[in-house]
C-alpha cells in the first residue's frame, strides 16, 4: 500500500542517470561540442562570407536547374530570400540553415543505417518502433534539458535535440521502403548468388531511394521546426527572433521571423522534392543527364569551398580578436544592460556574442563556463535558489544596479493595498511569467506563506504575454495581480502599484548582480575588470528600455546611450 502514498522517485532516477552520463562521458561530450561548434561556425561563417545578393542569385540559379526550368520555384527563391535579406535577418537565416543542414545530415547518417537494420531484423523492429513513438510524442522541450547537461548552450545542443526529434521519419521510411520491396526481387537477387552487401546496394537501396528521400524530407522539416525550440538554449538563428518576440509580445517582429522560416521551409521542401523526382519521369536517365547533375553538384561544392578559402584568408588578415560570451534572459531590463555591456566590450576590441537563454539555463551556462559572464542575477531573493545551487562554481562581482524590487503588482484602481488584503479579486489568479524565472519561485512561496491565498493559483506564461494581459485588464478596468519587477517600462506606461508584503516572502529590496565564471580574471583580465566596474542606475536603464520599446534595435539603443554617457562609460573602462 506504501507505493500508493509514496511517489516513485522517477525524477531522481533520471536525474541520477543524466548526471552519471554527464560525468562519465564528459570528455566525449566536450570533444563533440568543440568539434560541432568548430564545424558549424565554419559553415556559418563561410555562408556569411558569400555576399548575400550573390548568394541569392546563385540559389535562384540552382532552383532553376533543380526544378528543371520551372519559373515558380526560381521566383519564390529569389523574392523570398530577398525579403529575408531586406528585413535584416540574413545572418539569422544562415545560422538556421547551418543548424538544419547539420541536424539533417546527422539524422540521415544515423537514421538510414538504423532503418536498414530495422528492416533486416524483426526483433530490432519490435525494439525500435516503440522507441521512435516515444521520441516523436515526447514534447521537444524535454530534449533541451539533457542537451544542455551534455553539450552546454549554443548550436550543438540544438542539433542534439533536433536530431532526436527529427530522426524518426528517416528511420521509419527507410524501414518501410526496404520491407515493401516485392519478395520476388529479393529472391531474384539471392537466387543469382548476390551477397547481402550486393543486395543492399544493387537492389534494396536503389528501389527504396524515393521513399527514403520522402522520409528525409520530413526529417528536414522537423529539424526546421525545432529551430524555434532550440533557440531557448542559445541556438542562434531565426528561432531566436520568434522566441524573443514572444517574450516581448512583439507581434510584428514575431511575424517577420516566422514568415522567414516559412520561406526557408518552402524552399527546402521544394528543393528536396525536386531532387526526388528522377525516376518519376520514366525516360532512361542518359549519361548526359548524369553528367549535368554531377556538374551542378560540383559547382555547388566548388562555390562553397571557394567561399571557405576566402573566409579563411580574410580571417588571417583580421587580427585574431578575443571572444567574450555573455548570457542573458529576454527580460526588457536584461536586454538593455547586456547590450550596453556588449557594445562597450566591442569598442574595446573584443568579439562579443550575447546569448538569450531561459533563466535556469543562463545560470548553468555561466557555472560550467559556457558563458563568460552575465549581468542579470537578481539577488538576494529572486534568484536565491540558483545562487545556492551554483555559488561555488561562479564569481559574484557585486551589484551593477541597486534598488530594484520584485513583488506582486496591481493597477492602482485595485482596492487591495497589501498581499494580506487579497481575497477573491482577479479570479484568484496571479498572472506570472516564464515558469523558470526567479520571481515565480518567490510568488510560489508567497502563496504558501499567506493563509488568504490558500486557494489562489499562479499561472505561468511569458513576460510578453503577461504585459499583454496587463494591458487588456487595464483597458477593461478589471482587477489583475501580476508578478512584477522594476526597473520596467510598464511602470512608466501604466499607473501601477506594488502590494505591501508584510511577511517579506517576495523579497525586499534587491540588486542586479554581475556574475562571471571561475578564472575569468586570469583568462580575460580586462573584461573581468570592466564587468567588475560596470554599474549604472535605474534611470539609465529605463532610458535604454524605453528606446527599445519605441522600436529601436537593442544594439542601436545601447550605442546611443553610450554616446550620451561617455563619461560614465570611460569610468568603467579605467
Amino acid at each position, binding site marked *: 500500500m506504501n507505493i500508493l502514498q509514496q511517489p516513485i522517485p522517477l525524477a531522481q532516477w533520471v536525474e541520477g542517470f543524466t548526471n552519471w552520463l554527464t560525468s562519465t562521458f564528459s570528455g566525449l561530450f566536450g570533444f563533440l561540442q568543440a568539434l560541432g561548434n568548430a564545424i558549424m561556425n565554419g559553415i556559418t561563417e563561410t555562408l556569411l562570407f558569400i555576399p548575400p545578393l550573390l548568394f541569392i542569385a546563385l540559389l535562384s540559379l540552382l532552383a532553376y536547374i533543380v526544378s528543371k526550368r520551372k519559373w515558380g520555384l526560381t521566383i519564390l527563391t529569389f523574392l523570398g530570400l530577398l525579403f529575408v535579406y531586406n528585413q535584416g535577418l540574413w545572418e539569422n537565416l544562415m545560422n538556421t540553415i547551418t543548424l538544419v543542414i547539420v541536424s539533417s545530415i546527422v539524422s540521415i547518417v544515423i537514421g538510414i543505417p538504423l532503418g536498414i537494420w530495422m528492416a533486416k531484423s524483426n526483433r530490432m523492429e519490435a525494439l525500435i518502433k516503440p522507441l521512435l513513438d516515444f521520441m516523436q510524442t515526447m514534447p521537444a522541450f524535454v530534449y533541451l534539458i539533457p542537451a544542455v547537461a551534455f553539450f552546454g548552450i549554443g548550436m550543438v545542443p540544438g542539433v542534439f535535440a533536433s536530431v532526436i526529434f527529427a530522426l524518426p521519419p528517416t528511420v521509419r521510411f527507410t524501414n518501410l521502403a526496404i520491407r515493401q520491396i*516485392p519478395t520476388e526481387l529479393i529472391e*531474384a537477387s539471392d537466387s*543469382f548468388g548476390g551477397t547481402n552487401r550486393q543486395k543492399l546496394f544493387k537492389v534494396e537501396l536503389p*528501389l527504396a531511394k524515393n521513399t527514403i528521400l520522402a522520409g528525409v524530407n520530413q526529417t528536414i522539416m522537423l529539424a526546421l521546426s525545432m529551430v524555434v525550440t532550440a533557440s531557448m538554449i542559445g541556438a542562434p538563428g531565426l528561432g531566436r527572433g520568434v522566441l524573443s518576440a514572444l517574450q516581448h509580445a512583439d507581434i510584428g517582429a514575431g511575424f517577420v521571423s516566422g514568415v522567414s522560416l516559412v520561406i526557408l521551409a518552402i524552399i527546402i521542401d521544394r528543393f528536396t522534392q525536386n531532387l526526388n523526382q528522377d525516376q518519376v519521369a*520514366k525516360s*532512361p536517365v542518359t549519361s548526359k543527364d548524369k553528367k549535368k547533375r554531377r556538374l551542378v553538384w560540383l559547382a555547388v561544392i566548388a562555390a562553397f569551398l571557394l567561399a571557405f578559402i576566402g573566409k579563411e584568408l580574410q580571417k588571417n588578415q583580421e587580427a585574431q580578436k578575443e571572444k567574450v560570451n555573455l548570457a542573458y534572459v529576454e527580460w526588457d531590463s536584461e536586454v538593455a544592460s547586456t547590450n550596453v555591456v556588449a557594445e562597450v566590450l566591442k569598442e574595446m576590441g573584443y568579439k562579443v556574442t550575447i546569448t538569450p537563454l531561459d533563466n535556469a539555463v543562463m545560470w548553468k551556462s555561466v557555472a560550467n563556463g559556457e558563458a563568460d559572464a552575465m549581468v542579470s542575477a537578481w539577488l538576494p531573493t529572486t534568484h536565491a535558489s540558483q545562487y545556492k545551487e551554483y555559488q561555488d562554481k561562479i564569481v559574484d562581482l557585486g551589484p551593477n544596479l541597486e534598488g530594484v524590487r520584485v513583488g506582486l503588482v496591481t493597477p492602482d484602481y485595485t482596492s487591495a493595498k497589501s498581499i494580506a488584503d487579497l481575497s477573491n479579486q482577479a479570479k484568484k489568479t496571479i498572472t506570472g511569467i516564464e515558469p523558470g524565472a526567479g520571481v515565480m519561485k518567490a510568488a510560489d512561496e508567497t502563496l504558501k506563506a499567506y493563509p488568504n491565498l490558500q486557494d489562489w493559483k499562479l499561472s505561468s506564461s511569458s513576460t510578453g504575454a503577461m504585459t499583454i494581459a496587463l494591458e487588456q485588464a487595464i483597458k477593461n478596468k478589471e482587477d489583475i495581480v501580476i508578478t512584477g519587477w522594476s526597473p520596467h517600462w510598464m511602470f512608466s506606461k501604466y499607473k501601477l502599484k506594488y502590494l505591501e508584503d508584510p511577511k517579506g516572502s517576495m523579497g525586499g529590496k534587491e540588486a542586479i548582480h554581475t556574475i562571471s565564471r571561475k578564472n575569468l580574471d586570469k583568462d580575460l583580465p580586462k573584461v573581468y575588470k570592466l564587468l567588475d566596474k560596470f554599474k549604472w542606475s535605474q534611470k539609465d536603464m529605463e532610458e535604454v528600455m524605453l528606446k527599445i520599446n519605441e522600436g529601436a534595435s537593442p544594439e542601436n539603443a545601447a550605442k546611443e546611450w553610450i554616446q550620451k554617457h561617455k563619461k560614465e562609460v570611460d569610468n568603467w573602462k579605467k
Partner: protein
Amino acid sequence: MYKLEVSHLTKIFGKRQKQALEMVQEAKNKTEILEKTGATVGVYDVNFQVKAGEIFVIMGLSGSGKSTLIRLLNRLIDPTSGDIFIDGQDVAKMNEEELREVRRHKINMVFQNFGLFPHRTILENTEFGLEVRGVEQEERTRLAEQALENSGLLAFKDQYPDQLSGGMQQRVGLARALANNPDILLMDEAFSALDPLIRREMQDELLDLQAEQERTIIFITHDLNEALRIGDRIAIMADGQIMQIGTGEEILTNPANDFVREFVEDVDRSKVLTAQNIMTSPLTTNIDIDGPTVALNRMKKEEVSMLLAVDRKRHLKGSLTAEAARDARKQHLALAEVIDKNVRKIDPDTLITDIFPLIYDSPAPMAVVNKEDKLIGVIIKGRVIEALANTNDAEE
C-alpha cells in the same frame, strides 16, 4: 549419376515443428495440424531424381507446396530436414560461401512475376547474375547481349522493364537466367502471369530452346495442359507431398490415387454428364453487325472454317461456313442471306449418351441453347468421344 536428387526433403514453417511432424506421420491433414500446433507443413518427405537434360514438371493446386519445393532446391528457403544433391554435392549441408557459388554457376531461377528490377534497364537486368559473379564489364555486356539476341530483345536493351509487355518481360527473365549459363533452370509458374496466347508461344520457345541446349529444367505449374505439353516427367503434389511421378501418359492412364484421378480430369465422373458439362464456348459471328470480311477474319484468327451465327440478342440464327462468307463478299450480300439456318439445337440438360448418335450426322457443331433460344455453348465431336471414353474406363 543424377543431375539433381532430392531425398526425404521436409519443410515445416512456424513453431512446435516436432509435434507437427508427428501429426504428418499420422497422416493428419494440413488444416488440422495448423489448428493444433500453429505450424504449417510446406513440404513433407519429398523424394525424386532428375536426369540431366530433362524437363521435370511439378504440378499441384495452390497451397500444395510446389513453390516452397522449388525454393528449397536453391535454398531460398532452408529445409527443415532432408538432402538436395546437385551433381552429388549436398546443397542442404552447404555453408553460405559454397551455396553462393552453386547459385552463381549451377542453378538459376525464373519467377512468376518476372522478378525484374524496375530501376535497371533490360541489359542491366540481364547481366545481373554476371555482375554479382564479378565478371568484367565488357565480357558481361557481351554475354548479356548474346542472351537478349537469342530471345529477340536486343533492340530493347536500354528500356526499362515496365516499358515492355508481360511476354517480353518474361523473356528477359529467362534471358537473365540463361546469360549465366546454368546447369539447372528453375521455373516457378513462369508463364502463369501471361495471357493464354503468349503463354503457348513461350511454351513453344522453351521447347525449342530445350531441343538446342538440353538443360535440366524444373518447371512448376498448376496447369495440366502446360505440364502435358512440356514435361518429360510430371510430379503431382498435394498437401506438401508428392502423389505420383510419371510421364504424362502414365499419369493420365494410370493415376496412383483418387486425388490424381480427379486432378487430371476437369470433369467430375461421379455426375452423369450432360451437354452442359462438355460444351465449350462458341465461336460466333453477329449477323446484325458483322459483314463477311469480319467473319472471315475471325475464322482466320481462331483457325476454324465455320462460325455460329447469332443476332444482336445472342439468339441462334444458323451457321456460317467460310465458303458462304467468301461468296457473300464477292456478291456483296449480307451475312443473313448466306447462313445455313439448319443447325442442330440441343438443350443444356441433354445427356451425353443421347448426343452421341446425333454427332455423326451433324455437319456443323451442335449448338447448346437455353429456354430463350439464346446460344450458350457448342458441342465438339472430340469432347463427346473423350467423355464417353472416360465413363467407360470408370465402369471397367
